[in-house]
């Protein structure tokens, strides 16, 4: 799933599939299989990811979607409460805005 910079605009569902795969890779399939991962899932509360796992996830997003999105820059404007409340839909919307 590395370096697949999309040539065409991806739908919300297509981006979700990619992000869900990244989450599974970061937290492990065994744990991910027991989770109901949806677009509304928050990383901290629902998916129980900790901060270093969010870093790993973030790096996968950056590598996959390339320089067309400034994912780290976007995250950097968030305070800790906003990071804790971040869900998949927030990221999907951001990626769609950048396409």
């Amino acid at each position, binding site marked *: 799933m590395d370096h697949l910079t999309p040539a065409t605009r991806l739908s919300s569902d297509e981006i979700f599939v990619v992000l869900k795969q990244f989450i599974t890779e970061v937290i492990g399939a065994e744990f991910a299989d027991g989770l109901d991962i949806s677009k509304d899932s928050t990383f901290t509360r629902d998916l129980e990811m900790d*901060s270093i796992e*969010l870093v790993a996830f973030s790096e996968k997003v950056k590598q996959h979607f390339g320089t067309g999105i400034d994912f780290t820059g976007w995250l950097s404007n968030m305070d*800790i*409460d906003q990071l*804790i409340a971040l869900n998949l839909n927030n990221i999907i919307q951001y990626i769609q805005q950048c396409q």
Partner: protein
Amino acid sequence: MPVIKLTSNTTLHYQEMNRGAAETIVLIHGMMSNLSVFYFNIAPMLAQRYHVVLYDLKGHGLSSKCTWGYHLQGMAADLIQLLDALHLRQVHVAGYSYGALIALQTAVSYPERIQQLVAIEAPDPFEQQTLARIDAYSKSALLEQIAAAGKAQGKPMSKRQLERNYNLYHFLLKQTTLQQDMLAEKDFMQQPGIDRLLHNTLLLYGTDSPCASTGKQLLRKIPNAQLAWLAGDHHIPVQQPFQVGSSINSFLQPRENRIHHFQPSATSIGVETPGWNLAM
């Protein structure tokens, strides 16, 4: 994830931002933590101007486990191996808490590799309660995170997150030489190298920090040091990430671009140099 392999066979996980910038700053996290303390806010701010390198100390984050070598000389040697692997001859360095001690030790042991130095909330290893404080700090950081999560979403930290944190504590405190390595550092502040540091040094502390006296002590010892205060306690990188980033950015600016010496960020509440005190 990018890693380098140390001569001890331990691997260090690192991240880079804005590779290719003229100057590099390396960020060193504290004990029981990982590079994420800088990754989301402080590092991107610094990356607008600098090549930023963040890494997980051995035994922490996504670096591999290691049961020995947590003394400051060993941790400084790890940092030099990272710089060598990345072909970085000279860098700015900013460390937080235990990471600040590593930054100071690296400047003492390898002065030619360091340009300017930022020590955020460096504790004094001599104080008997330092280890307890490190332990307490991490526990309180964990509690803060739980409180923040509770505030935002009405639920405490998950069992999995607590378990992962507990495993890290247990490994480092019970299965490694970390505690005895830190006890062996009790004379760290008295080593002559600290008094002879010639690097421009920013000491950054929280106004309510239990380590504040160490900041004042370092200010007296390091000839080119200045001490700046931010509202908060030992956790200022978490409590005030934007102000910490802004303060470091302001401090690192080329001298010709500075109006005076160091301009504290708009929200910092004060800066001291050995002979004077501004805006306290």
